[in-house]
């Protein structure tokens, strides 16, 4: 593996009730987060292809972990990264954008929609709010959501943390209208 992993953390969030209403079946969200060494911490590196390859590796590893943690069908997804203080936002971009999506989608079987993403630079314990959207149609309003993850001892200055999230459904009590999951065509990734 090209990525030098220090730790992998998985999160499972299962919501059984919200505002007094039972959520049945419970809404499940799962995230898998890797903490890796940043090979370009403290220097300016023009060619980021190593990080692009690492993104491909992590797309598979973290997707498998997140899907296993979720158990069952995946409806929405998202990704995010936090770069430690000696790194550059572009390092997160190199991991997240060019090659990570293909293995992620392969694990899911499908995924026509853009994978919503966020990135930031921060210190240990920084909060990542992973944006979530329906995996086959980005306009499904009930599935616009987010999941917070945080690791108290990461990212160190020379590290990057990369997170993938998947869910079993949209928000627990969606009622703001818009495109419904049952109406989607799932061809263009939008509707």
């Amino acid at each position, binding site marked *: 593996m090209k990525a030098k*992993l*220090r*730790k*992998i*953390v*998985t*999160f*499972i*969030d*299962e*919501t*059984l*009730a*919200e505002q007094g209403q039972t959520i049945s079946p*419970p809404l499940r969200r799962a995230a898998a987060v890797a903490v890796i060494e940043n090979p370009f911490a403290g220097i300016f590196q023009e060619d980021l292809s190593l990080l692009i390859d690492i993104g491909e590796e992590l797309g598979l590893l973290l997707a498998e972990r997140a899907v296993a*943690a979720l158990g069952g069908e995946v409806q929405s997804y998202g990704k995010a990264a936090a770069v430690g203080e000696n790194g550059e936002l572009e390092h997160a971009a190199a991991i997240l954008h060019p090659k990570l999506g293909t293995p992620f989608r392969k694990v899911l079987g499908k995924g026509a929609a853009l994978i919503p993403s966020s990135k930031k630079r921060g210190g240990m314990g920084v909060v990542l709010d992973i944006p979530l959207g329906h995996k086959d149609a980005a306009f499904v309003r009930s599935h616009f959501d987010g999941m*917070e993850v*945080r*690791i*108290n001892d990461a990212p160190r200055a020379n590290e990057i943390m990369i997170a993938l999230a998947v869910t079993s459904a949209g928000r627990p009590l969606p009622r703001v209208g818009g495109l419904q999951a049952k109406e989607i065509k799932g061809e263009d990734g939008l509707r």
Partner: protein
Amino acid sequence: MPDVRKFVVTVEEILHEGGPIAPTPLRRACVLAVIRNPFAGKYHADIAPFMDDLKPLGLDMARRLIAALGDARLIEGYGKGAIVGEAGEIEHGALWHAPGGYAMRELLGGAKAIVPSTKKVGGPGTRLDIPITHVNASYVRSHLDAMEVGVPDAPRAREIVFALVMTTGARIHSRAGGLAPRDIKGEDGLR
């Protein structure tokens, strides 16, 4: 059974922390339950019977935790904690001592050491550092550890977050001496 709004499970898999990569990664896991606090908002003198209501929750949570780590035989360390929402009092958190502790010991087959614990009153997103010790001998220095836990949207004012934590071994680069697991007598739960 108490009124559960959500469960959160987190598994950390630690491969190294700057030293040699461990042949077997250390895993730490927590399970958190967010429940309605039946005593929120006013002083109740008689709260102890609620401990019986918490017993099935404790067992359910301990089972989730062991499932997250794979097998009860892998468990070497444990701890527990509680975060009480702002309409409650610290004493409500203390109701977790017996049902949380006994549930883990029952499923681990008679672990001898007292289950270390901590608790606080706090708002949503409050973090709690849960102390961890060896399941059979509190003085085993390699297993003195801690795991930070929390739920972004809990506890709300009228909720309590109850937590159980288990680990599969010593700190990842443990080398601070003291009583070692092989030297445990296993009689008093201390050494």
